[in-house]
């Protein structure tokens, strides 16, 4: 197995170059993606459900709750967002539990591109990343130049991470190379123009609820990783079906197999619909038993969520005090 390099590192590009033959043209890419092992839906769902029966108690639960908090991309993606709302969210991200300063901070604040500067300023010195959704989020229906401009704009405003959406229309109609090229160009647009040579990390959203089949999700995962994704992400949170344990399991298997093949380590972010501590722990168990320690950190696994944080905080209070908490003891956002 090749040595591991992070997807956002410089060496990753060389590793991907070794796979250039499979992305050389539409035909090669299609043959490669269609040559990936199939996913049996029922077996996959059964495996995810079994992992969901793990019983995480006491010390393990306390560890999992803090880990989950530290992995949250605390998100507000509303048409009604204002700088005030974003600042409030940032404050919460830094100090999730005002009554307990031992609660860890979240991983990132996720906002629309026009709120990046506000968030960046509010988070100064916190170590919390600013993630911006881009590329005509959530539908992805805009021309490539607009998507690239959207990305550059967010990067210029200081975004540390870009959450792009793929063109599901192109994917579902089999124009894999178009999707590949778009991701590749967005990745290039993530490079900061300040001459630092650094780049915002790129998360690629598949909107798995629209891809419908697990085979498609696996193909999309490989397609994105070949194109240079630093993270692969399930959903926008804006459609009927968002992150589910089986879909996330497909992503976890994909990053595992991709690293085995190329040595490039890619992160995973389920997003949308994860609201309870119980759910979050199920995902962590899945990461633990599919990928192990190396992915069990905010660097490699994130939750795209908003209301999840409060439930984690209430469970955290329950563990430390022994009594059940209530919504009045956590902050409204």
């Amino acid at each position, binding site marked *: 197995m090749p040595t591991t390099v992070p997807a956002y590192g410089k060496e990753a590009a060389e590793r991907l170059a070794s796979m250039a033959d499979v992305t050389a043209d539409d035909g090669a890419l299609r043959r490669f993606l269609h040559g990936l092992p199939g996913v*049996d839906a029922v077996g996959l769902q059964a*495996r995810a459900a079994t992992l969901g029966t793990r019983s995480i*108690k006491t010390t393990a639960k306390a560890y999992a709750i803090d880990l989950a908090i530290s992995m949250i991309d605390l998100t507000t993606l509303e048409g009604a967002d204002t700088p005030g709302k974003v600042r409030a969210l940032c404050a919460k991200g830094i100090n999730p539990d005002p009554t307990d300063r031992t609660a860890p901070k979240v991983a990132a604040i996720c906002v629309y591109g026009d709120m990046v500067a506000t968030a960046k300023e509010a988070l100064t010195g916190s170590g919390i990343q600013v993630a911006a959704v881009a590329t005509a989020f959530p539908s992805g229906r805009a021309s490539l130049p607009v998507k690239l401009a959207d990305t550059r704009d967010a990067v210029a405003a200081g975004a540390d991470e870009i959450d792009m959406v793929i063109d599901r229309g192109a994917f579902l109609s089999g124009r894999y190379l178009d999707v590949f090229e778009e991701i590749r160009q967005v990745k290039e647009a993530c490079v900061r123009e300040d001459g630092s040579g650094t780049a915002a990390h790129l998360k690629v959203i598949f909107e798995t609820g629209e891809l419908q089949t697990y085979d498609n999700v696996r193909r999309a995962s490989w397609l994105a990783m070949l194109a240079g994704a630093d993270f692969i992400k399930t959903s926008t949170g804006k459609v009927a079906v968002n992150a589910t344990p089986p879909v996330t399991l497909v992503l976890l298997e994909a990053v595992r197999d991709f690293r085995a093949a190329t040595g490039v380590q890619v992160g995973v972010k389920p997003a949308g619909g994860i609201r309870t501590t119980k759910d979050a722990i199920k995902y962590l168990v899945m990461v*633990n038993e599919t990928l192990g320690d190396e992915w069990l950190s905010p660097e490699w696994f994130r939750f795209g969520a908003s209301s999840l944080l409060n439930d984690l905080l209430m469970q955290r209070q329950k563990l430390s005090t022994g009594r059940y908490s209530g919504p009045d003891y956590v902050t409204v956002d």
Partner: protein
Amino acid sequence: MPVFEYAPAPESRAVVDIAPSYGLFIDGEFAEAGDGKVFKTLSPSSEEALSEVAQAGVEDVDRAVKAARKAFETWSALPGSERAKYLFRIARIIQERSRELAVLESLDNGKPIRESRDADLPLVAAHFFYYAGWADKLAHAGYGPDPRPLGVAGQIIPWNFPLLMLAWKIAPALACGNTVVLKPAETTPLSALFFADICRQAGLPKGVVNIVTGDGSTGAELVAHPGIDKVAFTGSTEVGKAIARTVAGTRKKVTLELGGKAANIVFDDAPIDQAIEGIIGGIFFNQGHVCCAGSRLLVQESVQDELLDALKRRMNTLRVGDPLDKNTDIGAINSAEQLARIRALADAGEAEGAERWAPQCELPSSGYWFAPTLFTGVTQAHRIAREEIFGPVLSVLTFRTPEEAVAKANNTPYGLSAGIWTEKGSRILWMANKLRAGVVWSNTFNKFDPASPFGGYKESGYGREGGLHGLEAYLDV
């Protein structure tokens, strides 16, 4: 040390109240054995004695058969709809008491609570529900307008799924109008004795279900008793053959569900992650104490390396230990005797030149344990490729073509089950057609359902349990 270590999550033992001793359940009453003999039943995970149960002798068996015969007159004369309601009651009570029964089963058998809770008990209740519904519909089963029961059924069940095997035996027998004398396995008598209490709660007429505990000699007395009309046995092929000899020349109807050495066949176009789960579940479910276990992995040579890497990686995540811990995947081996057999065969595998591998795992110091084990480089000639190990030991063989896979899969005196993993539909159907096995799981493994007939070809036994086909075993047809 992993960063995410699961803390112990034990299921409470307090939900089950095990008495210090149990008698035989005959004619609706618990009674000591005529000669007062008893034996202890152990918890295989700790070697702690759980209780003392009566050892039924020849006179006790005779009493049980007579009680069943007497009860048969009235039970078989009941309208099917009434028998159905008793069985529905039993099903419901099992659901109500499932937590207690799951803990009991894990204690007495050693299986993980996750399995007794999520597999055994739901299937036990489902089986009673399924056959309850048949009791008043037998005229529609295809055996004529008024199929008759056989009479008294002598039933002998194994220790691997004690309560589930009881359900497989008792539910169809009672639905068809028979009465039963059931002998649970020597090492796992408790859940059957608790079932006696469920019969009491359900108001089942006396003598319809009789439970005689004991060892193989009790079973032999039961099989040979002239007062029984039917023998149903699940267990080893060796004992199955002895039973077939015993009943020769009698009118006793027999069904036998015996051993297996199932091939789990993985093609290079398999859904690999699900195949890995199927292989793991196929051999490590219930510590491999499963007659239909996928104990021979036949993997296409072109994906052998990739598959074995994935399999080992997955085996590294298996959690072996306390059966009552909700996160345990592999529990205790049921008995010292079985552990010795598994060890002997695994040693033979090594001695014959196969390569042995097991993940690092710490085994508890008391109780009977065997780490999940993989043998590669196994050939058809090795003992571990031919003999049923009945433990968490997987033998890996390879093949190159579908024809070779079928030839190797069928090259065994057994014929209970088989697995096929490929994304190609026509190949699945071709393979399923060629495999000489009673149950073929394609792109899945070890699935059970009361509506689905189960049973073997060749030396895996005869007759079917479950489904419409399962009725035939208990009707005079």
